[in-house]
């Protein structure tokens, strides 16, 4: 496994897309702070050129990150089916298990590093360019990140599962979006009629993300579960990750490599 991880890290480090993705996302977030800064320069009374507004905005945008995770998983997966590169590994006796879990680990680690770097760039530029207001906003950011992290990892696990099972990238993205977005929304509607479906719907990651409320008055995070909220978010996230990891590996273990 260690050798497989080393080789994947080598490949990612030699792929421009790995850097371009982080740079583009960081650039867009930094630009948003630059715009606030310029507006403040233009109009001294502009009220939103502050760290609390900028970081608060970031905390409210996790849904985008949710969807971007599908893309991250995709480019780390590296179009293995179309490149027909799995066969070089399998022919050498590298087990399908090592390949599946190796890819998953690398995707999750890359996603977390990218997340830290991108958020870091945003926070740094906010503190450099904008007025420092409400220092508690950093606590809010860190707490909310801790709550949503298992949900992001769930998206990676689902996308990885479908990239392995479905040979076309479009098909894999479609299936992932179906599970990540369409299923919770549909369950949400059906939950209005059937109580059991509502219970399932409530713990689906997209709905758990939607249930997060950020209070900017006292800078507190309100989760779906009032008691043991963070732990329950992690348990729900990890349990659902497990389902898709088992499902994806189960299919891949029997899959023909072309």
């Amino acid at each position: 496994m260690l050798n497989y991880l080393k080789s994947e890290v080598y490949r990612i480090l030699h792929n421009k897309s790995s850097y371009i993705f982080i740079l583009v996302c960081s650039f867009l977030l930094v630009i948003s702070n630059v715009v606030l800064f310029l507006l403040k320069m233009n109009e001294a009374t502009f009220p939103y050129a502050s760290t609390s507004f900028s970081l608060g905005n970031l905390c409210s945008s996790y849904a985008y990150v949710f969807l971007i995770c599908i893309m991250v998983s995709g480019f780390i997966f590296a179009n293995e089916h179309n490149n027909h590169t799995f066969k070089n590994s399998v022919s050498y006796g590298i087990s399908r298990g090592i390949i599946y879990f190796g890819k998953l680990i690398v995707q999750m680690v890359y996603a977390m590093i990218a997340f830290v770097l991108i958020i870091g760039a945003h926070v740094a530029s906010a503190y450099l360019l904008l007025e420092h207001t409400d220092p508690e906003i950093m606590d809010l950011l860190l707490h909310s990140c801790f709550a949503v992290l298992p949900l992001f990892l769930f998206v990676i696990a689902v996308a990885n599962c479908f990239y392995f099972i479905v040979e076309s990238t479009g098909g894999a993205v479609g299936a992932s979006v179906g599970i990540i977005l369409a299923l919770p929304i549909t369950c949400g509607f059906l939950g209005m009629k059937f109580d059991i479906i509502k219970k399932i719907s409530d713990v689906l990651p997209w709905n758990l993300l939607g249930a997060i409320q950020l209070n900017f008055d006292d800078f507190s995070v309100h989760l779906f579960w009032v008691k043991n909220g963070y732990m329950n978010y992690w348990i729900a996230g990890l349990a659902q990750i497990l389902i898709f990891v088992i499902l994806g590996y189960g299919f891949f273990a029997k899959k023909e490599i072309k």
Partner: protein
Amino acid sequence: MREVILTTKQLTKKYSNVCAVDNVNMELKRGEIYGLVGKNGAGKTTFLRMITSQTFESEGEITLFGLTAKENLNEQRRRIGAIIEMPSFYPYLTAEQNLEYYRLQRGIPGKKCVKEVLQEVGLSDTGKKKFKTFSLGMKQRLGLALALMNKPELLLLDEPTNGLDPFGIVELRNLLIKLSVEKNITILISSHILTELSNLATYYGFIDKGRMLRQLSAEELAKECNKYMELKVDKVEEMVVLLETKLGCTSYKVTPEKDIQLYEYLDQPSKISQLAVTNGIALNSITVKDINLESYFIQLVGGVSNA
């Protein structure tokens, strides 16, 4: 006696109702160059894909270096180098980067093996050229480099001459002979062109519609493809007796059509005709014939329409 390094027993692959490989039994001994010959779609690639675990057998068993699937066959695959179908690599990496990626993955110690193997296949000067810009011949060479990088004991090559120019084919053939002679690497090579293997293989297997039709050594094949004299006579049994007693012939065959195929006295047809005439046997025709490798293969698979 040479060690058997690959055995398949009743190896079968079924896709719903289609049997791509049907009860194939074969043995590959150390040092052999085994030519697996069959037309397109005969089952050669599926057979090789089962050995390399890209696809799973429906029935039967593979034994590699003495171990079966129950005894960690996968571990033995690390002693194999393989190119199955077209060589495939990451398009955005260079030749060296692609090989370095697999070197790390396979845990092969020492970075210099990458440069050495690129030199061996003639790709040492590709520099920063990405794999996606490689010609077909360069891709084949890189595939071969990957297959050789782990210093394999067994090399599995699926139609490796595809995309190579005539010079490339000769170079590849010489390289394979060198690997076999100098490094005692056993080679299983598939092709749909029998003549391509004719100066290379030491053993042949002919496969068609998933079934192994015939397996024979290069010497046996050469014998079967030898020139022979075809005799059409009215009294076959008597002629055979005369050939044996008067001329001491032992190398002949009587075909189901009652023709005699004689592998001796090819340069003395008059002696044969004289023998027949003086003993009252009507000699309807006497022709010297030979079978080339293509004709042999076509005959084996049952005629041109099937080949």
